[in-house]
């Protein structure tokens, strides 16, 4: 038994099922990520982190807990990472971007529920995710109905705490949300038995802001045309940002950005003089869900921006670090999160405006809207987004899919036809 096997077993992982999962990842990674040409050297770090996805980082979590720290799992970008960090915790985004044990999940959930929720429970029931097993607390939220009810199911298996996310952005919704942020802090303090002070919270805010600044810097560089980094690599970076150590990640993202700036200065790109620039919009693409991004980029285009929770929604907007006192700082945290443009809000004109802004700033040629089947918020909003983009003459392609590979051919045909439409050679 290897060192990791002992660790996994200690966490209650089903070693056999887990080995099966770990076997499929390297070929997937090879096909979607490593096979890309002319990748920046700075991606080596992220390749390494991914290769150790259930190894080294989990070991850090275990050590952190042995030292008295807590680990808190989240499912949504609405959950404040700085609160968890301030309480001395490690925050891990629990991804569920691959189909695991759907038959097991279907014993507790209906068949027609989004792939994200189904896989999340699948990972838990199949006992193959060392992250969820490392969590002292899971923080859910009342974003969509599916998740809301799912957390009740999950709560029977592990401690779950649920935040109430409002669905409007009116004054009293803001009040509710500010309260919810404080309630979460209180729950975290109860978990650790320690009160969070102003300086701890401020440090945490700074740490997470730094991470956001680095990720935003990377987004700026994606405006380069020809592109200096692929959309898949950028997606991988934000996927890893959900669970890697924030300070270390910030350094590595900044190092990657330094390199990309040099590339840009030298006029070096990932290849091809100009590629059609695609904005990918819609549901989160949790690790290792690279299906649609790979289809787009192997068809000769580049994903130049992601309007997703595994993209700009995750790190846009900063918390005010200089807020005078605890109350002001907590309000600033709450307000920052309420700016996230999730499809669960109504009315939601802000999200459409944001998409239009991104289309302009990133000189986008076409929008690919990715919705998980059975996800009401995103599938319904697709119509309105399409209507608005049509007014601007921006081609729009709607893809409703899940984690399976059976529709890859059909999706490719549609994506390639879109790329032909915006005028490029079919490089596939």
């Amino acid at each position, binding site marked *: 038994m290897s060192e990791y096997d002992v660790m996994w077993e200690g966490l209650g992982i089903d070693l056999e099922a887990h080995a099966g999962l770990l076997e499929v990842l390297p070929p997937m990674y090879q096909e979607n990520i490593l096979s890309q040409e002319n990748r920046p050297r700075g991606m080596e770090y992220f390749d390494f982190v991914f290769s150790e996805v259930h190894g080294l980082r989990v070991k850090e979590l275990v050590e952190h807990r042995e030292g008295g720290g807590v680990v808190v799992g989240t499912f949504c970008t609405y959950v404040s990472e700085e609160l968890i960090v301030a309480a001395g915790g490690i925050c891990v985004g629990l991804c569920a971007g691959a189909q695991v044990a759907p038959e097991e999940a279907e014993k507790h959930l209906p068949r027609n529920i989004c792939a994200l929720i189904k896989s999340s429970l699948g990972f838990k029931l199949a006992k193959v995710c060392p992250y969820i097993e490392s969590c002292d607390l899971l923080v859910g939220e009342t974003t969509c109905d599916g998740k809301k009810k799912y957390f009740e199911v999950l709560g029977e298996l592990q401690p779950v705490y649920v935040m109430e996310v409002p669905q409007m952005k009116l004054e009293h919704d803001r009040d509710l949300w500010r309260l919810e942020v404080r309630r979460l802090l209180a729950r975290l303090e109860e978990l650790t038995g320690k009160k969070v002070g102003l300086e701890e919270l401020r440090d945490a805010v700074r740490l997470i802001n730094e991470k956001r600044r680095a990720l935003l810097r990377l987004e700026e560089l994606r405006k380069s045309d020809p592109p200096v980094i692929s959309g898949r690599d950028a997606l991988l970076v934000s996927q890893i940002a959900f669970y890697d150590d924030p300070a270390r990640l910030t350094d590595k993202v900044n190092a990657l950005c330094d390199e990309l700036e040099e590339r840009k200065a030298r006029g070096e790109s990932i290849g091809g003089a100009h590629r059609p620039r695609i904005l990918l919009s819609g549901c989160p693409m949790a690790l290792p869900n690279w299906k649609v991004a790979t289809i787009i980029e192997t068809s000769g285009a580049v994903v130049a921006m992601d309007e997703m929770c595994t993209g700009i929604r995750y790190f846009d907007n900063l918390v005010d670090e200089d807020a005078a006192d605890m109350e002001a700082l907590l309000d600033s945290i709450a307000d920052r999160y309420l700016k996230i443009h999730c499809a669960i809000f109504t009315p939601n004109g802000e999200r459409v405006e944001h998409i239009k802004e991104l289309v302009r700033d990133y000189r986008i040629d076409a929008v690919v809207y990715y919705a998980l089947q059975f996800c009401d918020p995103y599938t319904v909003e697709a119509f309105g987004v399409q209507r608005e983009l049509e007014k601007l003459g921006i*081609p729009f392609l709607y893809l*409703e899919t899940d984690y399976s590979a*059976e*529709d890859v*051919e*059909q999706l490719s*045909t*549609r994506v*390639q*036809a879109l790329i*032909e*439409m915006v005028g490029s050679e*079919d490089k*596939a």
Partner: protein
Amino acid sequence: MAIGGLDIGSRTIALVEVEDGELRWGKVVATTFDPLEQCRQLLADRSFEVLVATGYGRHLAQANFADRTITEIKAFALGCHRLFPECRTILDIGGQDTKAISLAPDGRVADFQMNDRCAAGTGKFLEVMAAAMGLTIDEMGRIALETEAEVKISSMCTVFAESEVTGLIARGTPRPEIARGLHEAICDRAVSLLKRVGVEREVVFAGGVARNPCLRALLERRLKVPLLIPEDPQLVGAMGAALSALQ
């Protein structure tokens, strides 16, 4: 200069030869379990300056003998625009896919819609239903025209519709009525896809299913426009592929 266009679909493979922008020759064979071998036979003793592939098997073709690929969407747009320069809307019902395409006046693709992964409303659907009734597709199309009465087929899922048809037969429903209902169902599906891209004249109906007279009649009635049908609707994709080489 002879240019080849190869359209490898799920049911049929079409090869055409285009010279000076004109269709010189074309042939359609079944895809079978060995499309590569079928292509090789089609291509034997033909030589092209350029060979462009389209359809489901385009990547397979490119890996083996084709110089370039384009999607079926673009191929049908090019082919239909060449045959009918005024054409603004295209319906293509193939073996496994149904596509609605709208064209800009200059023939470029302005918008398109494709059915999702299921086979509802495609040639495959017709094939399964014909088999359930013990008929060939041509026979089913013919008897559907014999009646105005139809039974409502409530499911568009190929699997459920098949059991629905079996049930209707068991209850003694006349076959022409069932056949008519099935064609109506496909017609509904195609019309809703077309409406999503907007129906503008002229409308071309292409792909293998365009040979079905009942569906043609129903669509014309529903859309209230005459449909333009290519002489050989199965060759349009291959022709468009070949024409793309001239662009």
